[in-house]
């Protein structure tokens, strides 16, 4: 698997690697030809046995996408992507089946052990055939029974298109219309699959919708689409991603996540992203262009984003909140770590429309190696948003003198009763702190891990317990070798 990273042309990997390894030689009809045109869209839609309206949506999105240009305002630098040189349908993507863990990259196994991942899980994550005991199907069934009892719909996006067309048609594109941006249009045209979640009125989802995801999310493909609707007075906590590193060879990811919260509803969305960041020389790695947005549609609704971003070569991601309902609340808690040659341009947008709306932004950027880490955030107060409040705290920590840490906040206030406060600091780990730890016998690497975790604590505390622990370990691993 590692050979691919030697290839200079990153895009080429995507298109050629599949043949090289012969992942799909046995099911020829399961992937589309290289390139993107209306026929490909029709092919995807037909493959997924979609109704006519879904195809129409995809085609409209595609036609719009053709009129757009790839954005270049982010503080990111990567070779130009040839969108005609990508396979847009090769799903469900299966990993090469390995006979035993002996065949797995030892570096990956080492990481698994550090994360404390069980042997069974290690096998599953690295593509080794797994026993029937933790077969995902059985686990899935157990969860689905519990959820069904509460009337919660939680299924793949394709299933939702088939089984809940009214809900999908009503809400899909409400928060992120296909016209929103280049990558959103692309996703709307070619999205492979994703998740759909509907929490009925007054229901408090009894599970973190995460364990399920952890087992099944790995194969949702490169153009994921997630739609979460929380009806009046409901609550759900949703965790996307996986703390274990995925050797995902998909180069380009352009996902969409839409959240809609009705009156008094609350959605907590947590992400731990640890996709392949490329090797130490900056070769390979995932390009992650994500449009995530939540709409606080109802009064007193609340959407809270928590993200721990440690992976991907390129991250372009701004989980946002549109605070439309009066008294609604938006939150964004982020830790973004970049090492080696990683580049991240991430942050949030808080758009205050309703009265008494509140937003909080806490962003902790950590840069190491030769990486560049940018916070980019918008706080916009519209004229009707009387008494809107925002507090933003964006801190950057630099490890080493070859990396960059940047902060680009945008504040637009059009209501005189609003109060906006933005604070940011940039600093490095203090020699005093390091020495103190070392004097107590903690080696430099561990000490950095310790200090960085302390620095990021405010955000990590927002994660569900189980993942907070793993995220902490992940931070330490990501920064390994960052200080010589």
């Amino acid at each position, binding site marked *: 698997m590692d050979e691919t990273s030697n290839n200079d042309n990153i895009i080429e990997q995507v298109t050629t690697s599949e043949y090289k390894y012969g992942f799909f030689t046995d099911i020829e009809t399961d992937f589309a030809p290289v390139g993107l045109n209306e026929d490909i869209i029709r092919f995807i839609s037909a493959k997924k046995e979609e109704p006519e309206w879904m195809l129409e949506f995809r085609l409209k999105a595609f036609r719009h996408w053709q009129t757009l240009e790839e954005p270049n305002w982010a503080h990111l630098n990567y070779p130009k992507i040839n969108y005609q040189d990508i396979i847009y349908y090769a799903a469900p993507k299966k990993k090469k089946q390995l006979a035993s863990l002996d065949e797995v990259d030892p570096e990956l196994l080492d990481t698994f052990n550090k994360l404390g991942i069980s042997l069974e899980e290690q096998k599953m994550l690295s593509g080794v055939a797994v026993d029937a005991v933790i077969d995902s199907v059985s686990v899935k069934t157990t969860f689905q029974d519990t959820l069904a009892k509460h009337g919660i719909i939680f299924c793949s996006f394709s299933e939702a298109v088939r089984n809940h067309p009214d809900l999908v048609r009503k809400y899909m594109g409400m928060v992120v219309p296909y016209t929103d941006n280049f990558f959103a249009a692309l996703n709307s045209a070619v999205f492979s699959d994703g998740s759909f979640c509907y929490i009925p009125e007054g229901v408090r989802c009894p599970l973190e919708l995460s364990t399920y995801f952890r087992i099944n999310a790995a194969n949702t493909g490169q153009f994921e689409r997630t739609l979460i609707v929380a009806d009046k007075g409901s609550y759900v906590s949703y965790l996307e991603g996986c703390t274990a590193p995925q050797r995902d060879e998909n180069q380009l990811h352009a996902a969409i996540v839409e959240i809609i919260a009705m009156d008094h509803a609350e959605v907590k969305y947590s992400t731990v992203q640890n996709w392949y960041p490329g090797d130490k020389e900056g070769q390979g790695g995932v390009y992650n262009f994500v449009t995530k947005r939540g709409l606080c549609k109802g009064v007193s609704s609340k959407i809270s984003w928590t993200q721990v971003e440690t992976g991907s070569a390129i991250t372009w991601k701004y989980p946002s909140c549109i605070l439309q309902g009066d008294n609604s609340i938006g939150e964004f808690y982020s830790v973004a770590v970049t090492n080696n040659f990683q580049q991240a341009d991430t942050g949030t947008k808080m758009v205050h429309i309703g009265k008494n709306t509140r937003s909080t932004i806490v962003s902790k950027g950590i840069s190491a190696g030769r990486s560049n880490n940018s916070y980019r955030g918008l706080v916009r107060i519209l*004229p009707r948003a009387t008494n809107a409040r925002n507090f933003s705290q964006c801190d950057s920590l*630099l490890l080493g*003198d070859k*990396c960059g840490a940047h902060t680009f*906040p945008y*504040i637009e206030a059009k209501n*005189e*009763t609003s109060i906006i406060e*933005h604070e940011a600091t940039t600093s490095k780990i203090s020699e005093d702190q390091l020495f103190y730890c070392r004097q107590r016998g903690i080696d430099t690497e561990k000490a950095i891990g310790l200090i960085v975790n302390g620095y990021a604590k405010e955000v990590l505390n927002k994660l569900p317990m189980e993942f907070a622990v793993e995220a902490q370990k992940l931070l330490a691993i990501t920064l390994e070798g960052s200080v010589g």
Partner: protein
Amino acid sequence: MNNSPSIPLEQLLVDQFRAGENKLMAHDSDKVKAIRKEHFQRFLDNGFPSSEMEKWRFTDLEEILDQPFIHELTPEKPPQNIHDIFRCEVHNFQSEIISVFNGWYLSEKTGLQTNSEGVVYGSLSDAKKVMPELFDRFFGQAAHGNDNSFVNINTAMAQDGVFIYVPKGVQAKRTLQIIKMVNHEDPVFVQSRQLVILEENSSLSLIHCDDSINHKPCLINTVTEIYVASNAHLELYKLQNLNNSSALINSTFIRQQEDSAVKTNALTFNCGLIRNNIEVALNGKGAHADVLGLYLMDKQQHIDNQIRVLHNAAHCTSNELFKGILDDEATAVFNGYIYVKKDAQKTEAFQNNKNILLKPTATINSMPFLEIYADDVKCSHGATVGQLDQEAMFYLRQRGISQANARLLLMYAFAADVINAISIEGLRNRIDDMVKKRLRGELSVCETCVLHCGTPEKEYFFDIDLSKL
């Protein structure tokens, strides 16, 4: 030069340059000619900036540029009573006045003059002839004009302006004050250029006033290049008090060498539209810059402060503070940008932008950016938008102070730390008065003249004059 007013300004300037290229550059060296031509080409390629450009997103010049401007390429004859008119609001304190009328240097004497303290100054066109080596060495070096074609067209075509040279070791005690007046019956496009050079161990304090005399529209495009050699000290105060039909595009580029110190303070009291592009490059170890600003806007006024502080060397410090009070339908843009170059270790850079909105119709867009490539740095920035502190408001009112006066007091207090940073006492007192007047709405209400030359000075003790309210 015959101008047909119906030609769009952009076309007019291009035509003028092409027709008069040789005459425009008659006294320029080959080096300067090449610079001018290159900038002209860039203006030709880009035209005036549009609000589709990221850096001009919130400042739309379309309406302003639509006006039938005229642009003179030869000096105009100033009116008879010019010296009566030539008073900035800030007068009555020890300063040596340099007058610029509609962009042209105004003096009975020709050539450069050296004042009693050893500071050399005069018109830019004379400097070119008298000190050609110095002129060639510095002209167009700092003013790069990236993202800003106003700098390009100024570099290509500006004919006159002010030249100031402070030789090695000269520590000027007296403040130099450039007063720039615009007075024209027709909408006029004015370009002027300043070149200020401080040699090693020298010091200078400079006030740069932009004033209008009438209520006619104008578009002023001014570019200032300032070179501060090692261990030199500069204080630069910009006072902007123009009428509501005026637009001012001010671009100031400051280059600092080792252990130099610069303090700039941009005080904006009135103008239809102002764009301040201020760039301070700390190129030598141990340099320090204070970059301050205050803007008090009302009606439909617009201010856009684009402030760049570039830490290109290690051990430099900078402190940036911009404060604004926005009333009525005024809009303000603040885009601060601190750049710390790789290896510019031990940098300390601070940036702060604070705004008060007084009316629901006022708007602020604040973008305090940091771009940092060195790790051993202390950088922070902050931005706030809010209204007057309601706790403080009640406290004042409980002590019997009326709402209107409490509001004035708090606004004045908000502005105080920018005003208090003015180290020339006479100037500070004058600015203090001006801010008070401005907050009471007296500075822009005068019907015939924005300068209130006829209004006798009011007595101020240490408080806001309550009798007026």
